[in-house]
């Protein structure tokens, strides 16, 4: 195809995933030459109207207005790609799904009546058809560039769904759980980060959400054998991908 028209849009999020595109310093000028950046407000005032060939969507759906806006964006987009844990699982703000959101608003704002928000934070795929998902909190720059390259070459992006353990072993890193008894979510977390945390002597904390096939129950039992309390097991499954089904389900068995 000739230069595809790219849009980058945002819902409830921290901006870190779209910033990852600007963080591809060595590739940024080449990417800007290969695609027409038609709508990327964080980077440019020059916002062109749709339709767009590819729309990258960051953030989760948390307001009545955004429920309507994501439908308009879907209608205006050829391919729609959800980028990051907010867009693929609801993000850290999906912790409200386990609580009384009205009470949350009262805890933060002096005038809760000024605030319009939904009781839940939900991923993009709960509202519209999503063509691809890039996991991560934040997404991996390597996967982001793979996605853009694949779309330019009109092929499927290569986005593996196996666990962090596989890429950790491939990288020749020492298993922090076996060698040091450090609780690690690597066995149930999708790869993509290049096993970052074990390389820093830290257990994986699940930024990329659940891998394709997981046994969270067995892992939770192993954590408890290492001395983790049920409350801390629940906390571990309830972070940036708390809304992802396998993590949500496991978290509800503890605490």
């Amino acid at each position, binding site marked *: 195809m000739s230069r595809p028209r790219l849009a980058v849009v*945002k*819902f*409830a*999020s*921290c*901006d*870190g*995933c779209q*910033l*990852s595109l*600007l*963080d591809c*310093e*060595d590739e*940024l*000028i080449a990417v*800007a030459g290969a695609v027409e*950046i038609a709508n990327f*407000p*964080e*980077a*440019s*005032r*020059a*916002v062109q109207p749709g339709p767009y060939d590819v729309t990258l969507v960051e953030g989760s759906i*948390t*307001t009545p207005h*955004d429920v309507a806006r994501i439908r308009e964006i879907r209608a205006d987009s050829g391919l729609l790609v959800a980028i990051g844990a907010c867009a693929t699982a609801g*993000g*850290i*703000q999906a*912790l*409200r799904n386990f*609580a009384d*959101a009205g*009470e*949350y*608003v009262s*805890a*933060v*704002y*002096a*005038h809760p009546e*000024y*605030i319009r*928000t939904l009781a839940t*934070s939900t991923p993009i795929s709960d509202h519209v058809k999503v063509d691809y998902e890039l996991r991560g*909190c*934040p997404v991996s720059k390597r996967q982001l560039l793979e996605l853009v390259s694949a779309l330019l070459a009109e092929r499927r992006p290569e986005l593996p769904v196996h666990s962090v353990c596989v890429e950790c072993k491939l990288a020749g890193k020492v298993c922090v759980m076996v060698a040091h008894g450090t609780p690690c979510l690597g066995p149930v977390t999708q790869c993509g980060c290049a096993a*970052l*945390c074990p*390389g*820093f*002597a*830290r257990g994986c*904390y699940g*930024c990329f959400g659940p891998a394709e096939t997981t046994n969270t129950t067995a892992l939770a039992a192993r954590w408890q054998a290492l001395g983790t309390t049920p409350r801390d097991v629940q*906390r571990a499954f309830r*972070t*940036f991908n708390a809304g992802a089904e396998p993590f949500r389900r496991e978290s509800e068995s503890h605490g």
Partner: protein
Amino acid sequence: MGETRRLRVDMLARVEGEGAVDIEIDDGRVTCARLSIFEPPRLFEAFLRGRAAEEAPDITARICGICPVAYQMSSVNAIESIYGLDPGPEIRALRRLLYCGEYIESHALHMVLLHAPDFLGFEDGLAMAAEHGEIVKRALFVKKTGNTLMSVVAGREVHPINVRVGGFYRAPRHAELAAMQPAIARARDDMVAILRWAGNFTYPDLEQDWELVALRHPAEYPLIDGRIASTGGIDIPFTAFDEEFEEVHHPHSTSLYGRVKSRGTYLTGPLARYALNYECLPPHIQALAKEVGLGPVCRNPYKSILVRGIETVYACEEALRIIGAYREPTPASVPYTPCAGVGAWATEAPRGMLWHRYEVDGEGTILNARIVPPTAQNQAAIDADVLAMANRHVKESDTALQLACETAVRNHDPCISCSCHFLKLNVTRR
């Protein structure tokens, strides 16, 4: 003679987040101008309750992908203050080094890709590259160097993974840091060139008389510690923040407005840090500031681009100094026992002071959390700048008026994700 033009622009660009600018014009006079923030509320302070205090650095980092280190540093220090924990000089130096990486990355991004296009009439930094390719390439190199530094110290640039209560999970090895020295030295020289380039811009002569608020440290340009100081005479520890400052909630914003209780509007960020800590900059950096047209105090928000440049040069030199003196902390973190208490801390995010306060129970569970981000503190000052510039440009076309108002906001590098994010300009002419 009543004017009744009405202009609506759906998004103000090149800021981090979603907000709007509303302008009301009656009889050719601007009667109201304000930044409205529509960033969907994410309610961090609510869901932090019941979490482990040791989770706060990783959770609060997710408030902002642009300045996650600021969130990690304010939270980790606040919690360590509750536990009476002093991780020692090596860990403190390493944290300062990580923060230097964030300054280099964030300032280079804002200066050249987000802010400079306003002075030169481009829609964005990439379009600017057609005429100013060498500068944009240099800025991308500086930005990349900041990001790489953050990755070497703490794993990655967005939401680093290596910061923990007590220190770090693993200290970077000396060789890993030493390998960064040539790039940081080149980034420093590139930033000096960018500063000289920006020194030739035409700057509108807006001077604002705000009380300037920033950390002050007796010996260093402040990043991660010190006391809260102001040009109005404030000099307090972090725990006394509530005695001098308050936050007000308005219907048009999902962010809160900060004010000095007794005097009102204040400004935090590069202009405030620079004015209150000028004497901590080494003489050759003061000379560089003078060369590009800055005195010891700068009250022109447009010239914040120059102050960011000065701070970036400082951050590169400070990073080189820390790496030169680096001794790997052993162990990488000090042990602690949770105890009940209340702690507050502020650090200097690239866009201004970031204050956190936590109350934890005896098991280290958070009972209450409060976070006051820089953009909320600056909202009133930003509104006033927009009002001043809207009045100057009120007779011009809506396009020119819009650009003037947008620039007045972008001067402050607002992070609207932080303060709750969307920029939309609504002009009502009656």
